């Protein structure tokens, strides 16, 4: 296909010239994957072949566009409207997301538009309708936007299963993937079932450095507030700035502090996933209109609408991941051929080291990323149930179709059959449900026993389980919605507690009908701001770079003076982690004993180690209360001190504990809950249908414990173990760490060491259920009795 004259004229009239990659996509005959930086006209490239095709009328849906963000579909619809109108094309473009009205949805089923813009979940839903073959039978093209982001989560697995379905329904389909810069384009092409990779010109190297600050970063802390004046200065000098912050709570605090110092009254907005949709849309609209000079954002702005005016990105806090840093820098895409400008603000001295390491990696174009595992089976279970909703299916044909998708190419028939058995009967060793099966086989085809079950199955679509969120409203009739907080955070609040949301301090008044009621307290300092947003894990590669930097005194020259001083102080009062030696410390802090191990094995391996070591500490009667794993260190707090870590780090002891303990801990239960929801064993909590005054539904922990005891080989436990292994990294990394560092250097200190200080401020601690917790429960019970005058 070549660019028709009318299209060439259109480009000329815009004063543009088609990018080579846009033409390359047009010429491609099979499936393609376009790798292009932000601002490279990626979306237009994806749609150009469709628009050219549609100069000739087509019956039914021609092109399906899938994006990870609902907001993106609306934006694309607007952007496409202009060329379509200019070129006089008779094309109907509509979006279809969770927000689309039922009447519109129903119409789309009967009379689909030429181009439909949707999300993976909405696509899965549409494929579960009986009319799916009619809707998609004439489909010619599929455009998968932000494929790099989708491939990072289970939404990508679900999307690839849906794509395999689409390919069966429309055998001549041509698929185009659009992706930002990734470390392994060939792997992403395999993920989408095979495609020709097309690289756009990556553009000039970014202009990226640490932000010059008047004050050095503090010893500890995660806020980056010391840099507020310098950030304001940078914002004032740029046209439009995005300030990325790693967690929602930190974004709130930073925004609050920024405004407190904003003498010039620069218009600055806040954008994160806990804000209400209305609040987020207001900020996005203001940004698009050029009314804001800066927006403080979390990962909520990693993807999405391009604001051409953004000419500076400031990353506050360690970047955690080189690839994500590069993608964030790309948001400063003032002009495609001008270098993106970005500045990094480390929040503390530990992060300075990480920032220096990350800058070195960016300069070397050394992107990180872990290889993708095979498609998870719980997602497949959901897919099987949704397939049954669309109509009877043949197991052999479905197996063949599923294995044509990238993530499930290696799926064994035995695993497929186990998933089918789970979907049909629950898959229990005790065959209790013969009369009540969900799927029955009749005339060789599998189908829903009770077609009414389709409604529940469709309600449960989706592969990402959010932590339970509660709405926050101002108290009083029709109080304005402010946003959401995690249920577990709300449960820790006492009336009178103050916290930050939407940049303002509010007082917690109470919980009513599952809504957190608050009153504004503008003059008060917030006591708490710990509703944790997404926690980014530092990539393994970046952790290694940090370790190399700290461990090699010759490399310290690359660090700022304050940082060198800090490491020197650590060397003086304790010890520097160094090659071949595993350094650990024990010290008291806030009435608890703290044990820190500098393992540099990555968050996941240290998390596993934390689980195992706390078990051994439990056996030793040390009363472990909880632990925290970062990418560099493991922190365990307990009632009694660890004086000799050697027995706790004995590989034999650790290995013995692995199976038993992993199976019984909180992390596994959390994984199980997600697996059980995705696979369709339990329904996710939907707003408005929970806790209706009577006994609430019981926790999935009970199901987990019951299965473990009575049906330990059950499919869902196997999936949970796989998920946990993926999430927690297998034991090999710990053994490798122990083998790599045979030396031991344990220090008993009377206070927190310079290197340990930042750890104590991290959030997201994993509680340990055990004697420590029981002792605390008893202590709290005793204190409450005493307080109430009852003994």
């Amino acid at each position, binding site marked *: 296909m070549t660019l028709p004259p009318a299209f060439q004229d259109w480009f000329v009239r815009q004063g543009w010239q088609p990018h080579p990659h846009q033409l390359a996509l047009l010429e491609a005959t099979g499936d393609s994957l376009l790798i292009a930086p932000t601002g490279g006209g990626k979306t237009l490239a994806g749609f150009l072949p469709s628009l050219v095709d549609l100069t000739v009328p087509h019956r039914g849906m021609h092109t399906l566009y899938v994006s990870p963000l609902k907001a993106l579909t609306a934006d694309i619809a607007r952007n496409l409207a202009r060329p379509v109108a200019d070129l006089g094309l008779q094309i109907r473009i509509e979006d279809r997301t969770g927000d689309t009205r039922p009447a519109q949805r129903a119409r789309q089923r009967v009379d689909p538009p030429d181009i439909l813009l949707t999300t993976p979940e909405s696509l899965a839903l549409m494929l579960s309708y009986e009319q799916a073959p009619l809707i998609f039978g004439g489909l010619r093209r599929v455009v998968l936007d932000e494929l790099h982001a989708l491939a990072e989560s289970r939404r990508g697995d679900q999307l690839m299963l849906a794509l395999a379905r689409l390919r069966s329904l429309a055998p001549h389909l041509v698929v185009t993937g659009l992706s930002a810069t990734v470390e392994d384009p060939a792997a992403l092409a395999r993920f989408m079932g095979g495609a020709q990779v097309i690289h756009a010109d990556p553009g000039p190297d970014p202009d990226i450095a640490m932000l010059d600050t008047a004050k050095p970063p503090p010893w500890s802390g995660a806020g980056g507030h010391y840099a507020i004046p310098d950030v304001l200065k940078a914002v004032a000098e740029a046209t439009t700035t995005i300030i990325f912050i790693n967690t929602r709570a930190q974004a709130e605090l930073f925004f609050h502090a920024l405004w407190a110092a904003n003498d010039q009254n620069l218009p600055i907005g806040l954008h994160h996933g806990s804000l209400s949709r209305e609040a987020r849309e207001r900020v996005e609209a203001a940004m698009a209109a050029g009314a804001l000079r800066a927006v403080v954002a979390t990962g909520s702005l990693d993807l999405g609408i391009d604001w051409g005016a953004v000419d500076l990105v400031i990353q506050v806090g360690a970047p955690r991941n080189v690839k994500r840093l590069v993608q964030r820098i790309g948001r400063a895409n003032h002009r495609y051929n001008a270098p993106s400008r970005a500045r990094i603000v480390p929040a503390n001295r530990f992060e300075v080291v990480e920032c220096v390491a990350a800058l070195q990696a960016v300069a070397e174009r050394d992107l990180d990323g872990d290889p993708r595992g095979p498609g998870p089976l719980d997602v497949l279970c959901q897919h099987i149930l949704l397939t049954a909703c669309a109509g009877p299916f043949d197991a052999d044909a479905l197996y063949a179709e599923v294995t044509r998708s990238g993530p499930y190419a290696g799926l064994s028939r035995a695993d497929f059959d186990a998933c089918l058995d789970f979907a049909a009967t629950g898959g229990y060793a005790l065959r209790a449900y013969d009369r009540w099966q969900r799927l029955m086989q009749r005339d060789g085809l599998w189908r829903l026993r009770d077609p009414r079950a389709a409604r529940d199955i469709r309600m449960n679509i989706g592969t990402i389980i959010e932590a339970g969120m509660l709405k926050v409203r101002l108290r009083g009739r029709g109080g304005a919605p402010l946003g959401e907080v995690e249920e577990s955070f709300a449960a820790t609040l006492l009336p009178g507690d103050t916290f930050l949301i939407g940049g303002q301090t509010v007082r917690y008044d109470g919980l009513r009908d599952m809504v957190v009621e608050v009153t504004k307290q503008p003059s008060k300092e917030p006591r708490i701001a710990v509703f944790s947003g997404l926690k980014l894990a530092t990539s393994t590669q970046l952790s290694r770079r940090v370790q190399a930097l700290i461990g090699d005194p010759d490399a310290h020259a690359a660090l700022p003076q304050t940082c060198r001083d800090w490491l020197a102080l650590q060397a003086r009062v304790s010890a520097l982690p160094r090659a071949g030696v595993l350094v650990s410390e024990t010290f008291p802090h806030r009435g608890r004993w703290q044990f820190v191990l500098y393992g540099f094995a990555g968050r996941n391996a240290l998390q596993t180690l934390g689980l195992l070591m706390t078990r051994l500490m439990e056996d030793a009667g040390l009363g472990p209360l909880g632990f925290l794993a970062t990418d560099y260190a493991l922190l365990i707090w307990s009632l009694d001190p660890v004086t000799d870590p050697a027995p706790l780090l004995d590989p034999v002891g650790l290995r013995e504990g692995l199976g038993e303990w992993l199976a019984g801990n909180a992390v596994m239960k959390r994984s199980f809950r997600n697996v059980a929801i995705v696979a369709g064993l339990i329904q996710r909590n939907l707003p408005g249908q929970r806790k209706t005054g009577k006994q609430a539904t*019981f926790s999935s922990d009970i199901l987990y414990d*019951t*299965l473990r005891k*009575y049906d330990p080989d059950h499919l869902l436990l196997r999936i949970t173990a796989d998920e946990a292994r993926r999430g927690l990294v297998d034991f090999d990394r710990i053994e490798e760490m122990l083998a790599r560092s045979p030396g031991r250097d344990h220090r008993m200190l009377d206070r927190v060491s310079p290197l340990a200080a930042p750890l104590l401020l991290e959030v997201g601690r994993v509680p340990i259920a055990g004697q420590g917790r029981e002792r605390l429960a008893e202590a709290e019970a005793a204190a409450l009795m005493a307080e109430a005058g009852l003994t």
Partner: protein
Amino acid sequence: MTDYGFDFGGQRLFARPSGALYWPARRWLILADLHLGKSERMARRGGALLPPYETRATLDRLEAEIAATDPRTVVSLGDGFDDDAAGRGLNDDNCVRLVAMAAGRRWIWVAGNHDPGRICPRLPGENLDQVRDGLTLRHEALPGHGPDISGHFHPCIRLAGQRRRCFLVGRDHLILPAFGTYTGGLEVTDRALAALVPEGLAIVCAARALAVPVGRNSHRRKA
């Protein structure tokens, strides 16, 4: 000692960490809301196919309680079965186990809202709407007619960051936690429970039974 002893209605009673109540003067073991057959009932009604082991798990714990206390009388305080059909649908293994547990003692099934009918004839024990024998035992607390011992609400409470089942003890009402394996809970601060027990004790089912104050004179956090 892992039990918690307290006085209610002029009797000395013991709350056990399992959620069972023991009355030593009579050697009665009282349990609320076993909800036997719950997973089968959910499947029958087109709901989820939950792991079908909860009846076995509940009976395992019940057996342990009977072995530990050797009661003369066992009282199921209503909702012993998730519905009347669940009682009839109990498999042979579980029936045999119940018969063995009941051998040599009196066994009373108080009717609950889930299981108002007569129990399956294959099962041991007698049906009663309520028991009046020194103390009044019924499924759901009756305001103004205390003191009574009841179940129904599945009370639970947050302690040290964890939600746990608990006994709720007031002047007029003693409400037992649910003993069944697949049972959720209602926070003691919920209006329904606060109305029955405006102030009193929650005895929490932890590794030991732990008492904490609830209601007016406490500073419990709302959950």
